[in-house]
């Protein structure tokens, strides 16, 4: 499928290396408008004042965890429809269920490959387009 490559994306992770890895892979897929945030607490204001169309977030972050960021986005009338991909080292079954219940569109366990990230993004946007 053809991805909406003009989508503005926010990548949230407390580790710089992971932010840059995800950004590079997104860039290779063809996305050009990619912003970065190092915590849920810094990401939420950006989301509220920006026109982002896709959120990729880590779970474990020091100030505001990714799961709380997801809940905050889903609770915001303007942001609640935003597709969200969680990319995290947390792989326990109950955590994946918790993330799904909070409203993530999909979930990737670190470490991951560029192909996995691309496939998940395609799946998410296919689902969004089908609604």
């Amino acid at each position, binding site marked *: 499928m053809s991805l909406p490559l003009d989508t503005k994306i926010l990548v949230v992770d407390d580790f710089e290396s992971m932010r*840059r890895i995800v950004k590079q892979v997104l860039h290779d897929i063809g996305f050009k408008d990619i912003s970065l945030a190092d915590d849920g607490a810094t990401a939420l204001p950006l989301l509220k004042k920006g026109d982002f169309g896709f959120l990729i977030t880590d779970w474990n972050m020091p100030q505001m965890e990714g799961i709380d960021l997801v809940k905050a986005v889903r609770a915001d009338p303007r942001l609640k429809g935003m597709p969200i991909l969680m990319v995290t080292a947390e792989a326990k079954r109950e955590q994946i269920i918790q993330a799904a219940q909070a409203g993530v569109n999909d979930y990737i366990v670190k470490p991951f490959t560029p192909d996995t990230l691309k496939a998940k993004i395609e799946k998410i946007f296919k689902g969004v387009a089908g609604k």
Partner: protein
Amino acid sequence: MSNGNFDPEQMIIERLQGKAAELANCLGARDMSGAFSIIEHINAVREESIFHGLGLLARGLHTAIVTFEVDDHGKHYLAHDESGTAGVTSQLDNVVRMSEESARKTLNILDTTLPMVRELRAGVDREAAAASVSSGFLESQKAGLQQVEHNLMDILMAQGFQDLSGQAIRKVNGILGNLQKDLIALLTYANHVKSMSQTLPVQLALADAESGGVEEAEEQTKEAALSQGSVDDLLASLGF
């Protein structure tokens, strides 16, 4: 807490042997009140030995955390705290910082190298497309550059180790800190219960027994997190 002469197990054995002899004497004299009093003392010795073991464990853990060192090869990378001692938590934090810096350097190099390789690939593709006949040289260049780009992407993805190892180290640091705090709280509580009990006239095996020690310890454990120096003082006040 070992000074070469002190053997806590031997100390307990000697105390029990002394009490056993007293118990035998009481029973021989049909002094039941005295006998039961000695049995209470023997029970107190058992509880004291458990308490003492916990104290040694807390002291050992604390000493290990504070004085952890690496070999000379890695020492110059490691920051020391105000007391001049590189504790295990600060050293683990340094490992996170060093691996982050290493990953940043690698990613910086990749930021400049990947576009160069892609530009080279595009150039070779243009040459191959413009060539009137198939060129083995251009084809091999094309395949080689494709492999280089693939390898560079593998290097990029491998930098994710820094995130995963960093998270693991942060968790270990948290566990160490909580374990130490919980042990101190347990010791303080046990010491408090003992001091309140009329049936356990037991002194700490190594206690200096300075007045106010327990109150000071309780006050300190109310804090969310103790500094290393506070932990040292608290353990000392409890006799460890």
